[in-house]
C-alpha cells in the first residue's frame, strides 16, 4: 500500500487517549560500493521503509514502529505505542508536563541537488570507484593497499503531528572516501581523504574530482611513512577546519545536548556565562551556512520542527543548548530542531546537525607565523567526549611548528583537554571556512549523519605522544 500524508493524518486521528501523536513515514534507500585491490569488496542496495509512531499518554512516551504498510499493522503499532506509554506512566517519576510551542513545518522540503543520484547508473558508480582505487595504487609503488567506498542515502519522509506539523521531506546524501596504506621497510602508514554532502553527484565532486581525492590520500600516506610519533606535551595546537568541526562536535556539541544537560553535564549552570575566548562563536545549524551542501543539513527535524541556526556560544558567552520540544519546555527555551531519528524504527533523540566555529579575522599565515612552538594538526579522525568535559580526538597528521615555521611532519596523534579550559585558550580564529567531517557518523544509541567545520584556529591542549 502506497502511503500519503492524508493517510497518515487519518491514522493519527484513530490514536485515542493520547495527548500528542507523531507519525513519521520514512523510506530510505542505501546504496554502497566498496573496492580494494581491484576487487569489488561489497556492493549492496538496501531498502528500509516504515512508519515510526510516538505518542504521549499521561506525560509518558511510547514508541512503536512497523515496516508493514497495511492499515491493520499500522493500527496495531499505534496501540502498542499507547500501551507502552500507559505502562510507563505507572513507574516514571518526572512526567512530561508539556511540549514547547514550535515553528512546525507545513509543506514540502527538498535540498538543492545538482545531478540527481538516481540519474547515474550503477555501472557508472561502480566504474568510478574501481578507477579511483586503481589511481591510489598507481600513485606510488609504496602504496600496498587502497580502499574506496561510495555510499548514498536517498530519503523520503512524511511527518505529521497532532498539533499541526505536516511535512513531506526529500533528502539525498552521497559520500565518497578513500583510504591509502603505504608500506616501506617494515613501516606502515594510513591516510584517508573523502567528502560527504547533502546534494547530488555533481555537488559531491564540485571541489575535487574522485581522482584528486584518491591521489591526495595516496600522497599523504606516502609522506607519513617517514614520520615519527610526536612528543607528548601540553602545547599550542593549530587545528584545520575538519579538526575544528570535531572539537565543536565532541568538546562542546555533546555537552550542550539538553538531555545530557539534564543528567548533569558540565555546562548545566553556564547559560549566559563566559565559557570561551571572545573570538569564539560556535554554531549548530540545520541549514548549511556559509557554503552549500554540508552533510548534516536538515530543514525539518523528526518532530516536524523547522530548523535554523542555533548559536551555542556567541563571542565567548554560552547562549543556547540543543533542544527537542520536551527539553525546550523544561528550560523555557525555543525548540532548536535537533530531534533526529536515524531510520523509521528509531525514536527521535537530540542530535547535532552541522556544527562549526564561525570565521574570524586572522589569515592562515599569520596564525602560523605567530606560533613559537606547537603543532599543526590536520585530517580529522575519531573523537569522543566525556561527562566531565574531557574530550579526545585524533588527527592523521601533525606538523611541528618552531619559531613561526612549519617544520617536519609527525604521525597523527590524539589531543585531549577539558572542553571549557581549551575554548578559553583559543587566541586566533582564521577567516577561511570549510566543512570537512561529512563522511562521518555520530553515535548515540543510533548512528547519525552530521557535519562540522570552521576556519583554522589556535588553542592550547595536550597532545598524546611518546615520553
Amino acid at each position, binding site marked *: 500500500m502506497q502511503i500519503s500524508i492524508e493517510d497518515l493524518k487519518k491514522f493519527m486521528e484513530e490514536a485515542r487517549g493520547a495527548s500528542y501523536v507523531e507519525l513519521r513515514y520514512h523510506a530510505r534507500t542505501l546504496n554502497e560500493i566498496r573496492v580494494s585491490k581491484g576487487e569489488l569488496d561489497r*556492493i549492496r*542496495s538496501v531498502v528500509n521503509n516504515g512508519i515510526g509512531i510516538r505518542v504521549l499518554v499521561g506525560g509518558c512516551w511510547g514508541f512503536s514502529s512497523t515496516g508493514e504498510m497495511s492499515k491493520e499493522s499500522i493500527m496495531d503499532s499505534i496501540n502498542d505505542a499507547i500501551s507502552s506509554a500507559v505502562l510507563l506512566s505507572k513507574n516514571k517519576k518526572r512526567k512530561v508536563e508539556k511540549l514547547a510551542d514550535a515553528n512546525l513545518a507545513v509543506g514540502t522540503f527538498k535540498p538543492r541537488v545538482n545531478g540527481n543520484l538516481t540519474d547515474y547508473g550503477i555501472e557508472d558508480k561502480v566504474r568510478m570507484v574501481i578507477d579511483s582505487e586503481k589511481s591510489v595504487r598507481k600513485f606510488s609503488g609504496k602504496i600496498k593497499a587502497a580502499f574506496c567506498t561510495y555510499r548514498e542515502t536517498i530519503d523520503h519522509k512524511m511527518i505529521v503531528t497532532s498539533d499541526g506539523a505536516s511535512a513531506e521531506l526529500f533528502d539525498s546524501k552521497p559520500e565518497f572516501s578513500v583510504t591509502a596504506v603505504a608500506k616501506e621497510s617494515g613501516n606502515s602508514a594510513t591516510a584517508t581523504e573523502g567528502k560527504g554532502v547533502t546534494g547530488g553527484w555533481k555537488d559531491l565532486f564540485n571541489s575535487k574530482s574522485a581522482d584528486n581525492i584518491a591521489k591526495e590520500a595516496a600522497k599523504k600516506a606516502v609522506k607519513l611513512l617517514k614520520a615519527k610519533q610526536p612528543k*607528548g606535551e601540553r602545547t599550542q595546537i593549530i587545528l584545520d577546519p575538519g579538526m575544528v568541526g570535531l572539537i565543536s562536535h565532541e568538546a562542546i556539541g555533546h555537552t550542550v545536548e539538553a538531555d545530557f544537560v539534564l543528567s548533569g553535564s558540565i555546562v548545566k549552570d553556564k547559560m549566559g556565562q563566559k565559557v570561551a575566548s571572545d573570538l569564539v562563536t560556535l554554531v549548530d545549524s540545520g541549514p548549511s551556512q556559509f557554503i552549500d551542501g554540508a552533510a548534516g543539513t536538515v530543514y525539518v527535524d523528526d518532530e516536524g520542527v523547522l530548523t535554523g541556526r542555533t548559536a551555542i556560544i556567541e563571542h565567548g558567552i554560552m547562549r543556547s543548548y540543543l533542544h527537542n520540544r520536551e527539553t525546550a519546555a523544561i528550560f523555557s527555551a525555543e525548540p532548536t530542531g535537533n530531534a533526529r531519528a536515524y531510520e523509521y524504527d528509531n525514536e527521535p533523540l537530540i542530535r547535532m546537525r552541522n556544527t562549526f566555529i564561525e570565521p574570524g579575522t586572522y589569515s592562515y599565515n599569520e596564525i602560523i607565523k605567530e606560533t613559537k612552538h606547537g603543532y599543526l594538526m590536520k585530517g580529522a579522525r575519531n573523537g569522543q567526549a566525556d*561527562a566531565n568535559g574531557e574530550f579526545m580526538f585524533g588527527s592523521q597528521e601533525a606538523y611541528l611548528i618552531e619559531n613561526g615555521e612549519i617544520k617536519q611532519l609527525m604521525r597523527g596523534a590524539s589531543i585531549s583537554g577539558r572542553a571549557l579550559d581549551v575554548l578559553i585558550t583559543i587566541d586566533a580564529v582564521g577567516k577561511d571556512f570549510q566543512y570537512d567531517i561529512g563522511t562521518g557518523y555520530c553515535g548515540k544509541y543510533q548512528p547519525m549523519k552530521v557535519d562540522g567545520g570552521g576556519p583554522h584556529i589556535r588553542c592550547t591542549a595536550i*597532545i598524546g605522544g611518546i615520553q
Partner: protein
Amino acid sequence: MTLLDICSYAVEEALKQNADEAEAYTMLDKEAEIFLESSDLKQVKSHRKTSIGIRVFVKNSLGFTSVNSIEKEKVLDAVNNAIKIARSSPKDKHNVLPKKSKVKLLRGIYDPHAENFEPADATKYAIEMLKTACSYDRRVSVDSGTFNSSVVTHALCNSNDTELEETISVFSWNIMGMAIDEDDVSNFDFQFNGTHSMKEIDVNSTAEEFARSVVNTLNAKKIDSLKGTMLLSPNAVHELLQEVITFAINSQNVQKGTSKFAKMLGKKVASSKLTVIDDATFTDGLGAESFDREGVAHMKNVIISNGVLKRYIYNTYTAKKDGAKSTGNASGSTNSPPSVGTTNVIFENGKHSLDSIIKEIKKGIVINRFSGNINPINGDFSGVVKGGHLIENGSIASPVKEVMVAGNVFEALKKIAYISRERKKIFDSFLPYISVDGISFTGG
C-alpha cells in the same frame, strides 16, 4: 509464509532469472526495549521486524539487495534488483556459495520464556538496575541505559540445497553515566552485559560495577608524565587489544595486505602467555549461533596458542582465494553480503591473581577504559585513559585525570607481563586483566 518458504521463493526466482547461484537470508526480530534517561524511565519501545538479504552470482558477478519486508511482491523486486546489480558488477572467480554444511543446532541459546517476555517485564528489570546504581551512592548520576529483550529467528536457503533455521533469545542491558560531587564530575562509565536465558539476567552486578567505577574516579588528580606499566581492565583489553587482534586475524585484511599478521602463520606474534580462541559454540557468549551468515556450521577456532599464530578466520570467499576451508566466520546481517568477523572471542586466563599482579607493579596506571584512536593496520594507538588510577609500589593510589597514553598494540602484545586468573564476560567476549610494561603516559 514461513521464513524458510520466503527464502526458497527468493532463491527459485533468482535461478529462474539466470542467476548461477542464489542465497536468501531472513531475520524476524521481536523486540521490547525500555530506555532510561537522567536517572528516570524515558520510553518503552516495541517492534517486530522482518528483513531479507538476497545474494546472487551471475557468471561470478555479485549482486546483493536487502529489504525490510517478506511480502512476495517486495521480495521479487529485490531479486530483480540483485540480478540487475550483478550484471553491472565485475567478475570474480572466487564468488561461489558454500556447499551444504553439516550443522548441529546448539542448545542453550534459546529460552522459550522470552516469547512471553512483555515490556512490563523489561520495565521491572530496568527499574531494578536504576535503583541498584542510584542506591550505591547518592553521587551516582545515570545518564542513560536500556534493557532489551529480543527473540531473533534467522533462516537461510541457497541453491546448494541448504535450508537452515534457528531461534535465539537475547536479554541485554547497559547503563551509562557518571558521579557528580558538587563541582567534581567523574569520567563516564559504560557497562553492559547480556544472556540467552531469563533466569541468568543479572542487572545488579552490572549496575554495581558501573556505580563503583564512577564513584572511584571522583576526586581525580593530574599527574606528571611517566613511563611505566599499563594494567588493562577487561573492558580496556576489549577496546585496545581485541580490536587490533580481530582485525589482524581476519583473512580479508590478510589478503588486502593490511594485516600485520600476514605471512605469520606458525610464528610468534605475542607473548607465550597469550592464547586467543574464537568460538561461536560457546553458548554463554552472546555471539553464539549454530551456523554462520552463509550457512556454514560454526566451530571452535584456536587463533593464537601460547603466542603463536595458528590460523586466520575465513568465510567461503576468502577461503577460496587462499585454497583454505571456511572457518565458519561469515558474518553480517540481512542488510549486507557476508563479510568476515569473529563470533565469541575468548582470551584464556593466566596464572596470577589480579591482586598479585598489582603487587608487582612499581609505577603504572590502571586503564578502566580507553578512549582514543587505534590504527589496526600498524597498531599505533593514542588516546585518553578513562577511569584510570595510579599504581605506586604495588598498590593502587589515587584516580587520575587528563592522562594520555600512546604506543603500539603489536609491540604491547609481545611485552605482556601478566594475564590475570580473573576473567569477565562482556557480551561476546571473555577477557582477563592484562599488564604491559614500558608504556608512555602524558600527564596534564
